[in-house]
């Protein structure tokens, strides 16, 4: 299948599209704030479309994030996201139509099973949970570029279990296709998180970045200087 509209038809595409998703309470909005503030600091145009109206803790949450001079719409077009970041492992499948066919999936190893899935397991004998392996094999039907990150483990290593979102900021920063410079992201993290967690968050960022160079940069181009 080809891309929605031929690249030649629309000239050079100046924008980068990043689709972020996860489960309510995982810190997706903070992550968006950090990237957005970093864009403001570095003079980049950015627009986002955020969906968290009725989402309680445990509901699905998504953010369309677009960086670049020709990013007008707050929503990404189908098949046009360069990167799909998922703070929870089931969620990238839910939004896969937004990703380019050769796009990058950066996903958490962690699955948060919704109560409806668990209730099926006790009511229908033989029902099993979906696994990360199931999900990755399905995602491979869309793109070969999939990195599974054990963000919870890295967050724990940073000394603060709530830094999974920052781990992913680190991963993103390694990618060549992510257009924001690392120093601006680090500065924004320091301004957006509670003061006493700044050090842990910066550690989580570094751990995420290092991890990306191991698990991801063999698949897709990464920034040099590591």
């Amino acid at each position, binding site marked *: 299948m080809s891309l929605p509209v031929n690249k030649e038809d629309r000239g050079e595409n100046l924008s980068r599209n990043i689709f972020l998703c996860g489960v309510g309470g995982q810190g997706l909005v903070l992550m968006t704030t950090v990237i957005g503030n970093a864009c403001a600091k570095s003079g980049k145009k950015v627009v986002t479309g955020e969906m968290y109206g009725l*989402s309680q803790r445990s509901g699905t949450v998504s953010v369309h994030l677009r960086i670049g001079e020709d990013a007008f719409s707050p929503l990404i077009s189908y098949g046009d996201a360069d990167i799909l970041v998922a703070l929870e492992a089931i969620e990238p499948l839910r939004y896969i139509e937004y990703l380019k066919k050769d796009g990058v999936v950066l996903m958490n190893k962690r699955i948060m099973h919704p109560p409806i899935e668990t209730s099926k397991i006790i009511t229908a004998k033989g029902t099993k949970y979906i696994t990360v392996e199931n999900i990755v094999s399905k995602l491979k039907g869309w793109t070969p570029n999939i990195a599974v990150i054990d963000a919870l483990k890295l967050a724990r290593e940073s000394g603060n279990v709530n830094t999974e979102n920052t781990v992913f900021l680190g991963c993103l920063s390694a990618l060549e296709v992510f257009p924001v410079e690392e120093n601006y992201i680090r500065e924004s993290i320091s301004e957006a998180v509670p003061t006493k967690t700044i050090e842990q968050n910066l550690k989580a960022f570094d751990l995420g970045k290092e991890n990306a160079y191991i698990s991801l940069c063999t698949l897709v181009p990464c920034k040099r200087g590591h």
Partner: protein
Amino acid sequence: MVLKDFLAKEQKTVFMLCNEAIARGALEADVKVVAFYPGAPTSEVLDTFSEALGNFDYQMEIATNEKVALEVCAGASFAGLRSLTAMKSVGANVASDILFVLGYTGVRGGLVLVIADDPHAHSSQSEEDGRFFAPNAYVPMLEPSSPQEAKDMVKKAFEISERHRVPVIIRTVTRVNHQSSIVRLENLERTAFKKAKWKELKEEFTTLGEVARQKKLEMLERTAKLAEEFEKSEFNFVKRADSDVGVITSSVSYLYVLEALKMLGLQEKVNILKLGTTYPLPKNTISSFIKGLKKAVIVEELSPYLEKEVYAIAKAANPSVAIFGKGSGTFSEAWEFNPNIVVKGIASAMGMEYVDYESIIQEAKKLKVDIPDRYPTFCAGCPHRATFVALNQALRIQVAKGQEHYFANDIGCYSMWVFPPISRSDSSLCMGASVGVANGLSHAIEERVVAVVGDSTFYHAAIPALINAVHNGNKFTLLILDNSVTAMTGQQSNPSTEFTAGWRQGKKVSIENICRAIGVDFLEIVDSYDVKNNVEVFRKALEFDGLSVVISRRECALYGDRNKRRRGEPIVPFYVDKNLCKKPYMCLRTFYCPAYEIDEDQQPRISPDICDGCSVCSKLCPFQSIKRTEVKT
């Protein structure tokens, strides 16, 4: 955005959510009084003002409902102060009574009213098109596409409001309110808050009969002047191209149009008229835009509001122009737009080939076949879950005794009872309507009617319906779920909270005292977590031959966590003792807590980082296998 940016006194370029930009625009315009009832997608306007309250001297109220909020603003405006409120479109229905009157009486200090529609009903009961409030109330309306434009329009709206002595509507949609982008902050020059002397300002804000008839003529005159002024407004602009095709658009659709033209390779090859003042419409501007066009594509979400005007204008200006929009079937009146829908619409109007996005969706669908749904559900520790478990047991006992039920749900977190796996609700309508329809149903059906309403919804719109029930002797059961805050929109304070806006000390308004004063004969107050006891209380309430009210009380888990963190108290999770668990799954069967999973031994497991330590599930286990983690000290 971080608060520091919001408070910046000097010019600055920042990344901001549109709702924050609206608040900043009002601050830059020296707003003095703000009042809100929270509702997605506008709640962050309230939250931003609440968070910043300590830094300024504006007066702020989290009002009992949208009508009261607008009336608070009107009062301030009569005294010459600038005021602002923001509400979702269904909230504007509640506020419309005073809005229509203000159209007649006019105002003094600038009064700006943000009405946010929710195309796609992401977090609302309907896809209402709030634009029709403006022509119906003869009140001007501005529609921004982006955070920057929203901020600019709010500032301009205060000027328009004062120049024409009329409230001004800023109409947004979810994809505008929940859009963040780069915003230019202007200098923040605030004057000190000062009370006015009414005797120096005195004038009459009245309308009735002959006065109303006179004012109607003045309204028409005012609207004609506004129409003339809006012909020159910077918020309407044309992007010319050497082409006989033109797009007329407004709101977020304008951004989709820019994106779609880029995707179709039509940048600068199609004329665009972007409308920012959508009531009264700049008819001359539209007329001269469509002159000479062969095709006009109208890109707007929901109703054909602009389109009908374009048809009317085209009749004189360019009768042969082909109009593509809702009428032609190019776009639907249902659901929100996105770039792909607009690409498809413009391509079909141009007679171009477009790539079939449906095939992408279909291909994705195949990959999604087995993924579990993730419906919104109650948070771990949510008191509503515990109330539901007890109510469900009580209803089962009553069913066994031959009593059947009608379940009237309402608007709040407990609305989630309509979603699987619970899926229990015979009706779920609008704020306070559960009590209203319970009155009618109690006459009309043999089954016992059970209505539920939350604390915030009770104060907002349920009290008149409850008084009605007492006065008329209507027999049903009402559960009032009092979790201390307006939880669903982000735990804002309400009269059940000991705080007001900005977390300043306020006076709690007792729900039970209201019920007693009204004359409710059966009134019980229970702790939501006390499931065993509550089954019996609910059962008695269901059996009571009259109106029975039970207040199920326990603070919202997220609000409770926030208070615990503030006090430095730990949240102590529970765990399943694998040696005691015999897998009857009583902890899971009707409980549906997101902290629960099944482990490799098919035993329930509690995720310690999700568990809120509420203890309710531990009481459901017949083998006492669910225990509190010991706290390391």
